[in-house]
């Protein structure tokens, strides 16, 4: 790691002041991505601002047709929350499938979506459910939040406070996990709500994306068969040693069908 100064602010205002005073500072949440990145010397922040001293940023509230999750809430907390499992079981299952127990005890929803790894699970849930990302200065609709590979709409110094998920009529998530690390080679989140069906894909492309053809077909008929003939274009998908773009395109169809089946069973 390159050298940095460490800060653990006790208020959001103090965190903001530290970020404003140090343009090369980075926020530290659970550290599950940032610390390995620092070890590999792929980042050289002047300062780390640890959000672990702000208990107001962690916590779960279910009510008013929403599940609200604080940015510093860990994956394990979401996965094992009786309230989340009752109101939005697909999201609890998604959180339970991230990494392994040790990672789930530290990794946070705010850190995951701010990092916007193309193979992360949460972006599929955030976009699939049409969630709202609440920051220290504004609310950002999920469709506008993820802008590219490891890129989001967050401005310098902007801090994610909470993610608000509307509770759908039915939802499901299915992924083809990397066998060793569990990240999504291709993962699909499907949600049916009064406004229609949303289908969000992670892992397959440079960033999470929706599949309008599947959404239209599922809005007409919410069954796995309805999307059996929808072909996903492989042109913009990822190829790496684990899967070609064509294979990922195929996996998107398979995972979407499984997600619909899961939604129907929940």
């Amino acid at each position, binding site marked *: 790691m390159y050298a940095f100064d*460490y800060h*653990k602010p006790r208020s959001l205002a103090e965190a903001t002041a530290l970020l404003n005073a140090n343009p090369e500072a980075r926020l*530290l949440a659970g550290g599950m991505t940032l610390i*390995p990145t620092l070890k590999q010397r792929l980042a050289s922040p002047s300062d780390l601002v640890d959000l672990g001293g702000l208990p107001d940023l962690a916590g779960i509230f279910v009510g008013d047709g929403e599940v609200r999750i604080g940015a510093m809430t860990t994956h394990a907390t979401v996965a094992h929350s009786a309230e989340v499992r009752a109101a939005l079981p697909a999201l609890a299952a998604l959180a*339970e499938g991230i990494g392994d*127990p040790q990672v789930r005890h530290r990794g946070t929803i705010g850190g995951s979506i701010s990092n916007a790894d193309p193979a992360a699970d949460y972006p599929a849930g955030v976009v699939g459910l049409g969630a709202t990302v609440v920051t220290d200065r504004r609310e950002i609709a999920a469709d506008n939040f993820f802008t590219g590979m490891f890129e989001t709409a967050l401005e310098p110094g902007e801090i994610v406070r909470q993610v608000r998920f509307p509770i759908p009529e039915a939802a499901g998530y299915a992924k083809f996990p990397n066998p060793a690390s569990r990240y999504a080679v291709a993962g699909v989140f499907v949600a049916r709500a009064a406004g229609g069906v949303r289908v969000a894909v992670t892992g397959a492309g440079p960033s999470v994306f929706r599949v309008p053809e599947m959404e239209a077909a599922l809005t007409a008929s919410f069954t796995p068969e309805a999307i059996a003939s929808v072909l996903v274009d492989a042109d913009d998908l990822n190829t790496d040693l684990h899967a070609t773009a064509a294979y990922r395109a195929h996996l998107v169809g398979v995972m979407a069908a499984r997600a619909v089946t899961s939604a129907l069973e929940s």
Partner: protein
Amino acid sequence: MHNENVALTVNGRRHALDLDPRVTLLDALRENLGMTGTKKGCDQGQCGACTVIVNGQRINSCLTLAVMHAGDEITTIEGLEEDGNLHPMQAAFVRHDGLQCGYCTPGQICSAVALLAEHKAGWPSYATADVATAPVLTDGEIAERMSGNVCRCSAYSNIVSAIRDVAEGGRI
């Protein structure tokens, strides 16, 4: 860049340290406190050899900075024995031969101890078919719940036997 004063509570004992903020919890345990029971395997959060229990939760000590843990209760493999006797999980690993080279073993044992607490709290896992009922610790459940700990000697079957033995109230 500035060092940080941090007080770490490890196995019930408080240690005041003056640390470069880059020092991971793992390196603080091994290099600064001389507690080498916790092992450094991959040092990037994939193998689980460095697993310790912080405030009751198992985490990878290589993936967290020591300065982040002021005030936390940290338990390592050295803190599991009671009055000179092996912890039941340590004894079960010996009895079931749940190791070959032994390098991953401290992490496996810390992870397994936390696993039993999580199971006792009623936490389901990815392998639980019906999350509405209390999950039974089948071999499949144990394997899923131990997925953060890799054993390259592949002692998995005996590790699972040891954990199931303790879960079922086995001999000490």
